[in-house]
Each structure stands twice: as C-alpha cells, then as structure tokens.
C-alpha cells in the first residue's frame, strides 16, 4: 500500500487566519509554536489549548478545514516515543482539559479530564482511601498515559490501563465527539473504543475525558527483596513466587548495567495477611522479610530521555531467558544494557543513545530473532534522533492490514499523529 | 430485527418456553393423536442448553439436533405439523434415553415423558429401513424373555437354538448380537453351566431378627447371565434381616419395551409382574438392575389410560426400590469385614438419572473397611449401553463405551462396580477392544462387593471376573 496522501503543509499566508479561528474555538488559548514545541525533533507551527471537549472538537474542526496535522501533548514526557511524525502543524496542549470531574467513591469510579496529571487523580481519590491501581513511571497526564500505555510493576495483578479504563470521550479527526463505555465497570454495550485508543499514540482521536475503575488502597504494603547472583536463578525465582499462594501485586527484576541484580516482590493487603505472605515469600526466595521498603529502582523505567528505550514482551515463563539473552547480545555488541522486568512478561531495557547505530540496530534485530522462538515482541519505544532513522521501531505487527483500515476509517487523510505509529500509520 | 418472526412480545428478551407458538396441535404432521408428547411439557424448555454437555450424543457429535434441546425442538416442530422424516426419526432413535438431561435441567423439563411419548409415535408413524426393522424384531424376540435368553448361554448355542441364525443371515447386521452374548457369558461368574442356571429358592429367610419382608425381581439379563448377582442380593438382604421372597417364573418387567416405544408389549409384561408381586405379600420389591427399577417405578404412568389398572400399578410402583436404597433405608446390622480393594463406582444412568440414586451405593461401598472408592471423570455421561442401544446404534455406543472405559481405567481402580448388567457388558466390550490395557480391571455389581465383605470372602471371588482370565 502506498503511503496515504498528505495535505500540503500550512502556508505562511494562512497562519493568521488559522490562529484567529483557533482562538475563537478555544477561548484564545492559542499561540505560535516556540522552541521546544516539537514532536520527536520536528517543530510544530501552532499550539492550541482547548479547555473542554467542545472546544477540543472546535479546534479539530478548524484543523480539519485547514488540513493541519495534529499531535496531542500532555506533559510531553513521551512525545519522543514512537516514530517521528511525517509532519505536525498543530500541537493540542491538553493541560487545560484537567480536573477530576467526578469521584463516585461508593462506586469506585472516577471521571477525569485527559490533561489531568495522574498524580493529581491519585491525590483526589486517595482522600477516600482509593487509588487508580496503575504505576505511572514518568509523571504523565491521563491522556498521555492512555495514548502510550506505559506500565509499571503492578500490572502483574491489576493489568494495564486498558484494564482500568471503563469509559472514554474523544474527538475524531473531523472534529466529531464520540464516546464509548460509561460510568459503570460492567458494560458490554457497543464496541470497546477505550481499548483501541489505549496505546494508539494519538493516531485515532484526541482523548478528552476518561473514566477509570478504582480500587481500595491496601492497608499495608511490603516488599521482599533479594539479590540474585546467578542470572540463571531469575526464572526459577519468579516461577516459585507465581506458583505460590501469596498472590503478589508485583514481582519485578532489576538488572542494572553494573551492580547486583535484584528481584523484589510486592505484597499488598491487610496487616496480618501481608505479614504472613511476606514471610512465605521470604522463605521461597531464601531471604529475610526485611523492612518492607521498595528498592530504589522500583517503579522506574531503566531508561532516561537520552537512551534507546526497548520493550520486550514474552510468555511469563520466559522472562529470565529473555533478560539473559538481551544482556548477552548487548555484551557481544559491546553495548551496555540495563533492564527491568515484570513477571507478567514484560522487560524494559535501556542502552545509551550514543552507542554505535549499527550495533544498536543489530541488537534490536537479534533480539527479535531470539524472541521469535516463543511468543513475544520487541519494540523500540524511543531512540535519539540519529539512531532512530536506522531502526525498525515496531518489528512485525500481526493484523497490520486491519489496523490500516481502521486508521483509514477514522482518519482517512492521516492528520492525527501521522506516521508516528506502526506501519507508518 | 426485521428478520425475526413476528410475535406478541415485540422486541423483548423473553425467556419463554420453546413452544411459545404451539397454539394447536397439528395431527397432520409427524405425530398422531394417540398420546402425542405434551405441548405444555415441551414448552417448559427455556432453551438454556444446560443439558447439552451431559448428553452423550451431543458429547459425541456436537450437533444441536442430537442434543436434548434439539430433540425437544424437533418435537415442537412435529407438534406444529412438520412431517416425520428419516432425519427426524433418526435423531429420536439416536437418543439413548439415559435421562442425564433430566438431571441437568434446572427448569424441570420432563424429557423422560416426552421421549417416551415420542418413541411410541416413531414406532407407529415411521417405517425404518428393513435392516433396522429386522434387527429390532430379533432383539425383542429374545431379550425380554428370560427363558429364551437362558438358552442363549454360550454363543454358539445362542446362535443356533433361537432361530436367530436365520434372521442374522438375512439382515446381515446381527453379527453383533453373538458378541454381546459372548460378553455376557464371559462376565458371568465361573460356575458350572448347570449350577449357574439353577434357580434360587422361592424364599430365603432373614438371619437373626427379621426386619422386613421383601420381594426380589430376578430380571431377564440379570437372571440369565448374572445369577451370581441375584444370589448375592438375596444373601445380603437376608444377612441384613430380610425375608426374601423370590417368585418363580417371573417375566420381563417391560423396561426394554417401554424404552423403545413398544407400548402394548410393555403393558403385557408389566401386568404379569404386577400380579406376581401383588400376591407375594411383600413390603418392598427389590430390584438390582437399574433399568428394571426405573421403569417399574413408573408403572403407574404406563397404565395412565386404564384407571383401575393404573391404581394397582402405582401401588406396586410405590414398593419398588433399588437394592442399595433398601439397604440404606434399613441401615447396616451385619458386620462388614475388611475388603482391601480400590473400586471405581460407575453411575448407571437408569439408577443415577432416572431414579436419582447416587448417594446410596457410595454410602454402602464407603462403609466397607479397607475399600477405597474412586470417582470416574464424566460420571454423568452414559457408557452407551442404554438397554439395547448398543445393538441398535453401535456407531454411537462404541465410542461412548471407549470413552467410559478410558475414564474408568484412568482411576487406576482394581474393580469397576456398577448396578446394571447392561453397563457391565458395554464397558467390558470396550475394555476388550483395548486389549491388555483393558483387561487388568475386574467388574462387579455393588451388591456382590457388599456380599464379599459381609461373608468375609476375599475380593478375588469377583475379581476373577476379569477379562484376562477369560
């Protein structure tokens, strides 16, 4: 399939008209782009900040009229994730779409604007002893987190954002507002668009509001951590904990570029319950229960903004193998590698962004070849500009033809985050 | 939905009976006016499908029309005027009558009544292919007649003496019958031919204090091929304090005929049995063959259109008990001696589903010191015996038997225990198909195991009945 027709970029002469229209659409919260208003190194022309779903719809309608390519931005923590868009004229800043609209504590549900910081949401619902059971590794907004679907340790028990999102409101590329799901956890009326939008990198629509299911915050949490000297012990350790009756909320492994490897198990629950379970886990791992504190690496990605960020997925039983392979291959290429894994079958890995591009490309290639032996995938979430060009960020994507057709239905001329996603979508 | 049939309810999710539409019965269809299946009973089915996974034919073929829900739907169609086609009759004939669906149904659909009425309709209104007809005639000329059956002991004699041989040659499908009889023969305890055929005394007196007077139905197949079971039943009852009355010249109870839609024949047999036991002066009629027990308990319904006889039939039916029921009712008095065997207990459909007797045999077995009872996976699914079904529909019965045999062997038990001669035969045949793997396990009736424990005889007596030794 040839790449979809893209509209000509915004003409200089058009800019002031567009600015005026946008200003009308979103209460004057619009400006020309400045330094730093860029996506993956690509500078934008305009920034608009709608304050409501209606304003967002108006903004996207103006964008449609003027054939502007649009990228949404929350806190901008993951704007460098994904491929570089084929172009961007307008950044829609979502931070005015903020606030916890409703917290139905008795129903364990919260309705929240897409630009709200996840931290703010946690604070509000925390007041009622509740939480969104999601670890936010990077300080995201709600919309940014949904669009890129990062994940932290507690995905083991609670799943990822897709499993917590029960309703969503979004604006289509043509400015039409649509919603799916609702305010009740159990609901099978209509297609689950929330799932489609989760991890869609802003290519299907602009998320303006989300509804989450919440969980009661556990009374007690305890980490049992031990150092693993022989990497071959990682797999058996994870398996032992998973097969036990301790129901951990998270089991993560840290394998730094230098220093000791650690596995840490998070137990959450009642006072007595956690105490006994922590004892059981400590016995399984042949260590002591310790003070229960999280290790310093807990809940953080192993990569920083200048690293090549890699995400590997695999069956639960292959986490140890996947980590060992990754470190072995990296060593062969003389690359330093740090990785962190969830026992749920996800390994995040980092290698410095200034490594030799061919070495990084080969590493990614070999990791993919290795993972083909079992089920799984290797994604490059982010890579500094010079490296990115030579990398296949996504690898093979089953179902790509259907994905292209879906994109085509919702955004036929590819105006939303064009090119940022799989297969050039 | 524009395509949906129009109806009174518009577009609501109605859990209504399947027959929400049978306003009037249309006798121009498959069913005539003589006792058609009751449209109201058909209407009780809410189409939930809960009965499907316990239906042996659904388990085998996975097709709606060979499931209870599908068969009820076919009945509905027939009532509404669909003609009796080969396909329709075929799906009714394929029903084993195991009644697992009755147990499974949360809505209380009386499939037993429905299929019985339907079988009569098929018998009258459908002409089966010639081979099928000959086969049926041959079977019904043999099985419900204890004396003819007894003559068949020994496959060869069977073949020649009954005149079956000619029928077999003509129909070409009767090769199976001798096999079945050979299986029966091989399962019969190794007694001499004369002794095994020797009738039981007409009365066996209670040991110790008499607690009840009971009659014993000796049955056709049980009496002819498993006389040891009848003897054991009489002994156990006596040891537990019963005077056991065993009338001579008992005929068939009529079960086979009822289950195959041969109503007149069934009534003839039943009447004789009722008369025999009415005059025996017993408090209970004890039955040790599940199929017989289940139809005797329904004698009342069989005579529904003869009020006077119906009353007598119902009165007798009220006395009928499976031997395990009676023994649990009485409670143990005789001493149980240790019997160190592992047994797998197989629920005969006509005991578990038709009579709801599941707990009693297990209770009796569990009370034997040293005996370990194991459950068989998929216990609710029929072994394929189902009266003479294994003769009529071997293509279904065989795989069911194999499935049961595999599940039985998986328990690793020494002895397979069940309460129905048909099941023993059917599973034995399946074991035999498995060769050595299937020959390691012995078989016995519940009451034989109990007998061994009460008499402190070693388990080998019935364990000898392993196929290996034969």
């Amino acid at each position, binding site marked *: *399939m040839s790449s979809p027709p893209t509209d000509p970029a915004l003409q200089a002469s058009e800019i002031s008209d567009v600015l005026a229209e946008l200003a009308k659409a979103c209460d004057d919260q619009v400006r020309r782009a400045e330094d730093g208003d860029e996506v993956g190194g690509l500078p934008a022309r305009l920034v608009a900040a709608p304050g409501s779903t209606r304003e967002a719809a108006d903004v996207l309608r103006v964008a449609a009229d003027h054939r502007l390519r649009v990228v949404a931005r929350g806190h901008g923590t993951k704007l460098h994730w994904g491929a570089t868009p084929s172009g961007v004229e307008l950044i829609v800043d979502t931070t005015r779409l903020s606030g916890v609209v409703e917290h139905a504590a008795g129903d364990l549900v919260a309705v929240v604007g897409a630009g709200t910081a996840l931290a703010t949401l946690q604070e509000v619902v925390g007041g009622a002893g509740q939480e969104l059971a999601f670890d936010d590794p990077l300080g995201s907004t709600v919309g940014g987190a949904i669009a890129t679907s990062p994940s932290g340790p507690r*995905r083991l028990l609670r799943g990822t954002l897709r*499993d917590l999102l029960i309703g969503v409101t979004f604006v289509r590329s*043509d*400015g039409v*507002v*649509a919603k799916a799901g*609702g*305010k*009740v*956890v159990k*609901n*099978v*009326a*209509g*297609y689950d*668009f929330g*799932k*489609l939008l989760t*991890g*869609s990198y802003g290519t299907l629509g602009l998320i303006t509001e989300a509804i989450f299911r919440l969980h*009661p915050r*556990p009374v007690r949490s305890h980490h049992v951590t031990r150092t693993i000297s022989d990497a071959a012990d990682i797999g058996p350790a994870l398996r032992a904990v*998973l*097969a036990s*009756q*301790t*129901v951990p909320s998270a089991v993560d492994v840290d394998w730094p570029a230098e220093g000791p490897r650690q596995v840490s198990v998070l137990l959450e*629950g009642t*006072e007595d319950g956690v105490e006994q*379970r922590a004892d059981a886990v400590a016995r399984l791992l042949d260590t002591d229960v310790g003070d229960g504190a999280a290790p310093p690496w807990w809940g953080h990605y192993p990569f920083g903004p200048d690293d090549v960020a890699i995400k590997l997925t695999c*069956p*639960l*039983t292959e986490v140890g193998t996947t980590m060992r392979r990754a470190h072995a291959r990296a060593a062969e290429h003389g690359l330093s590698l740090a990785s962190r894994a969830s026992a749920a079958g996800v390994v995040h890995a980092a290698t410095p962004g200034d490594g030799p591009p061919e070495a990084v490309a080969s590493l990614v290639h070999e990791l993919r070849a290795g993972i083909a032996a079992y089920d799984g*995938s290797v*994604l490059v979430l982010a890579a500094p500009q010079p490296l990115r060009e030579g990398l296949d960020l996504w690898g093979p994507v089953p*179902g790509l*033809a*259907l994905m*292209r057709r*879906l994109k*085509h*239905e919702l955004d036929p001329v590819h105006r939303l985050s064009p090119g940022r996603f799989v297969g050039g979508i | 939905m524009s395509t949906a049939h129009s*109806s009174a309810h518009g577009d609501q*999710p*109605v*859990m*209504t009976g399947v027959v929400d539409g049978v306003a009037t019965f249309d006798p121009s269809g498959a069913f005539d006016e003589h006792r058609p299946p009751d449209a109201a009973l058909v209407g009780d089915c*809410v*189409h*939930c499908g809960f009965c499907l996974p316990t239906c042996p034919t659904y388990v085998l073929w*996975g*097709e709606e029309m060979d499931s209870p829900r599908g068969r009820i739907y*076919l009945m509905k*169609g027939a009532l509404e005027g*669909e003609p009796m*086609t080969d396909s329709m009759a075929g*799906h009714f004939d394929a029903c084993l009558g195991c009644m697992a669906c009755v147990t499974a*149904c949360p*809505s209380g659909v009386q499939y037993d009544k429905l299929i019985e009425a339907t079988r009569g309709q098929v018998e009258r209104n459908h002409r089966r292919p010639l081979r099928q007809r000959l086969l049926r005639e041959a079977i019904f000329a043999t099985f419900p007649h204890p004396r003819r059956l007894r003559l068949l002991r020994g496959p060869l004699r069977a073949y020649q003496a009954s005149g079956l041989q000619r029928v077999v040659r003509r129909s070409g499908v009767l090769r199976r019958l001798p096999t079945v009889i050979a299986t029966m023969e091989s399962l019969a305890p190794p007694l001499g031919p004369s002794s095994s055929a020797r009738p039981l005394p007409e009365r066996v007196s209670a040991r110790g204090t008499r607690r009840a007077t009971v009659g014993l139905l000796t049955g056709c197949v049980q009496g002819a091929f498993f006389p040891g079971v009848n003897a054991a039943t009489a002994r156990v009852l006596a040891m537990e304090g019963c005077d056991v009355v065993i009338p001579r010249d008992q005929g068939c109870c009529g079960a086979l005929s009822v289950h195959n839609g041969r109503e007149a024949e069934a009534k003839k047999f039943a009447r004789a049995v009722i008369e025999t036991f009415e005059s025996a002066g017993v408090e209970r009629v004890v039955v040790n063959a599940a199929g017989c027990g289940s139809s005797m308990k329904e004698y009342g319904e069989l005579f529904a259109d003869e009020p006077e006889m119906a009353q007598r039939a119902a009165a007798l039916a009220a006395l009928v008990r499976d031997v395990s029921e009676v023994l649990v009712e009485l409670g143990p008095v005789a001493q149980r001696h240790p019997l160190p065997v592992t047994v797998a207990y197989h629920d005969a459909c006509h005991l578990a589903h038709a009579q709801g007797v599941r707990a009693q045999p297990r209770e009796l077995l569990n009370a034997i010191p040293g005996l370990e009872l194991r459950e068989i996976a998929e216990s609710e699914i029929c072994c394929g015996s189902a009266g003479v079904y294994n003769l009529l529909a071997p293509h279904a019965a065989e795989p069911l038997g194999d499935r049961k045999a595999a599940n039985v062997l998986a328990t690793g038990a020494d002895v397979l225990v069940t309460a129905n001669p048909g099941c023993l035969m059917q599973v034995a045949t399946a074991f035999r198909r498995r060769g050595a793997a299937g020959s390691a396990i012995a078989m016995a009736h519940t009451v034989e195991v109990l007998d061994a424990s009460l008499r402190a005889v070693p388990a080998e007596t019935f364990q000898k009945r392993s196929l290996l030794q034969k």
Partner: protein
Amino acid sequence: MATTAQRRPRDLDRLAARLRTVLGEGAVITDRNRLRTYECDGLAHYKVTPAIVVLPHTTAEVAAVVRACVDERVPYVARGSGTGLSGGALPSAEGVLVVTSQMRDILETDAPGERAVVQPGVINLHVSKAAAPEGYYYAPDPSSQQICSIGGNLAENSGGAHCLKYGFTTNHVTGVELVAPDGEIVRLGGKAPDPPGYDLLGAFVGSEGTLGIATEVTVRLLRAPEAVRTLLAAFPSTDEAGGAVSAIIAAGVLPAAVEMMDALAIEAAEAAVHCDYPQGAGAVLIVELDGPAPEVEAQFGEVQRHCRDNKAFEIRIAADDIERALFWKGRKSAFAAVGRISPDYIVQDGVIPRTALPAVLRRIAALSDGEQGQGTEGPSGVRVANVFHAGDGNLHPLVLFDESVPGEAEKAEAISGAILDLCIEYGGSITGEHGVGADKAKYMPRMFTDDDLDTMQMLRCAFDPLGLANPGKIFPTPRLCGEVPGRHKGVHPLAASGVAEVF
C-alpha cells in the same frame, strides 16, 4: 453495509455444494428439520431458520466458509453453544450459520505460563477442569459456564459472579486467531502481553461476532486460590442487603463475588434445586472471599460484621465445598429456575452504579406493583424477581408473565423496557453481560448519540465493509461503509487504501 441491491444474485444451493466439497457431507446441514433446531439461541423468542448450517473443525475450514460467503455475498453468523440471551447468534434467513460446537479441543494448557490455548467451541467450564489438576482455573464464570463456549464468551465479553474481583472475559484473553470478514486468518496477541499496534484484540472481545469468527483463543489461567470462604446471609429486604454490600465495599474489602437474590428469585430457586435458603428472607446475599488464607481470614469476619450491622437475621457459612456448591446452585440456576414459577418471563440485563441499588430497586418495585409497596402482588401487578451481581451493580430483573393471559405479555414488556430506562437514568448501561445482539439494538440510541454509534461502526467497516458478518446486530441502523467522515473530499478512501481491491 452493502445494500441488497448491490449484491449479486445468490445461489444458496451452489454455495451449499461448494461448502460440501470443502467440509464434507456431514458438516453441511440443509435438511429443514435439522436447520430448525438452530433457529434460536438462549433467547428462544426470536427465531429465524438459517439457509445453511455448517459445522467446521478447523480454522482453515472456517476461512473457506467465510470466503465462499464473501464470493456469494451471503451473510453469515457465528454460533457457539447457542446460550446467548440477546439473540446474538440469531441466524440470517438467507445466510450461513457457522457453528463451532465441533471445534472443541483444548490445544494446550500451560500452567506455569498461566495460559491455555483452546478452540472456540470449548466449553468454559472445561478449561477450568483441564487446568484443575495443576491448581489453576479460568476465572470468568458466567452462570451458563457448564455449556457456553469460549468463542461465545469472547464475543459477548461475558462476565460472571467472580468478575467483581477478577474482571471480565476481556481481562482474561491474551490472544485470538480469527477469520476476518474477508476470509483472511489473522492472529492478534498470543501468550505474551501487549502485542504491538492497536489493541484490536480488545475491540474484538465483546464485538458479538460482527468483526469476524474466532477460531483459536489464548486465555489466562489463574492460580486457584488457597482459601475460599463463602457465606449466605439472609436479610428482611433488599434494602438491608444493599446496605450491607455498600458497607463491605466501603470498608475496602474486594470480595470475589457478591450476589443478591430477592424473595421471588429465592422461591424459584427453591422450587428448582431445593437449595434450602433461610425461611422468610426478603433477600439473600452470597458473599465469597478468596485468596491467600491469611487475607481471607482477616476479611471474612469483617464481612460478617457488615452483614449483621445491616440486619442480617441469619448468616450461614459454608463448611465445605459441598455446602458452598449448594449456596451457588440456587444462584446459578435462578434464571432457568424461574420457569418453575412462571410460564413465561423476560430476563433483563442492565447495570447501575452500585450505590444506586436501593433506589433503583424501589423504583422497580413501584413499576411492578403500581403504587404498592415492595413484594406485594397486586391484582394488576407484574411480578419481578431480582437476581443480581450486586457487587458491580449488574441487575437481572426477571419479569414474569403468562402469555396465555391477554395483555400480560405487553405489560411485562413495558416494564422490562422501563427498567432499562431506569438504568440509563442512573448513569448505567443497557447491558452488563448479555450483549446487545438483535434484541437491544433499538436501545442503543438511548445510551449513545448518533455520532457515538457512527464512530463505532467505523470499526465495523474497517473489518467488514460488505456487512456480511452477523448483520443486523448491535446497531439499529447500519452505516454505509465508505462514507467519508467529516468534510474531507477526495479519493474514495477504500480505493485509496487499497482495501477496495480485496473485495
């Protein structure tokens, strides 16, 4: 959806012949009596006799069937065990019904990897049975689990009593192989989490057979809990029972299940399965906690306290598995059991926020009794039995009537519809687990705007531009695929994307 006029003239006999060459004689049904046994699912009230029924065994056979249907422009409908309660598997009169009941092999159970790979016709409960020896089970447990298929569960995103704690089918499916409406075989996800690209799997689950036919499903297996404690608490009325539910949840306890039945539902269950619930109860709650033994012990006392504080007059604690099974038996057989106390009834499925439970129940009672108080059966009253997954606000009102009494059916229907309006009024949903199907399509516009529905149908168009996969379900009015959204004009998007050539 392509309009009928655009379709080539159909020759169903030719299609049947083609299908016979692919599937074999026995797997293609055209006999009228046989076809008729497939004319409805669990919602027996809607009936359409399909033109052809096929019983494929393999993915390749399903793909061949779909391709044949595409060639002939004949609609097709997937069917699992036919227990759906929204008419989702209602056939098309001039279409093919693709029944998966012979695709019933459990291909793999991988306990340490916490996955099972199964064919779509595998019965839900059989997955748990297969995993049980290794101490694992499949969590979603619809009341119909003894017969409903994994394919049907996937299509309906089925829930069950234990979904309060563990989530629904969508949270327990990690991979699917499907035959897309163009006949292509596509794999989405697998044993590993987070497959790259759009979460098409997430959208496919719950799509009611409109996006293709699942031919292999990878599901999660969970470690069987160390401890399970179940109690049955009897309350004077549903108000107190509802209060107990709120108190339990507010205390931060997340039970595995919280199920409620009102007096009439109890009566039906007693009649059917003799579950021997406490006499005189206006409502019973079944509360089940599971998990690590110390956690369960710590919270079980708390649950009992909340029940007592809310006037439970009897609390029974299951002593063993047999007793627990008996508690559940009453609940799980309740739908079908209502057949024992009423000749006809409507099973409704709606959702409300849990906290609205007492208010909504009072409104339902008012609906059913006219102005009368709760539980009485006025002369013109339509009786409503209530069974629900109280923990997540999923109501199953059972509206009883006797079709042979003139006017009753209409009244029951009116009340049933009014209950859905109540659900929407309180911010809930018109279906929590039974799906929209043929039955509730007309209610969709009450819950969603035209734009919402139009957007959803874009997904459908992406998968099925010809509109052949389970047409007429979910959406009240089909969208013409190829309609360009918004004001953009240009090349026909299907042609531009190359899709058009595929068909």
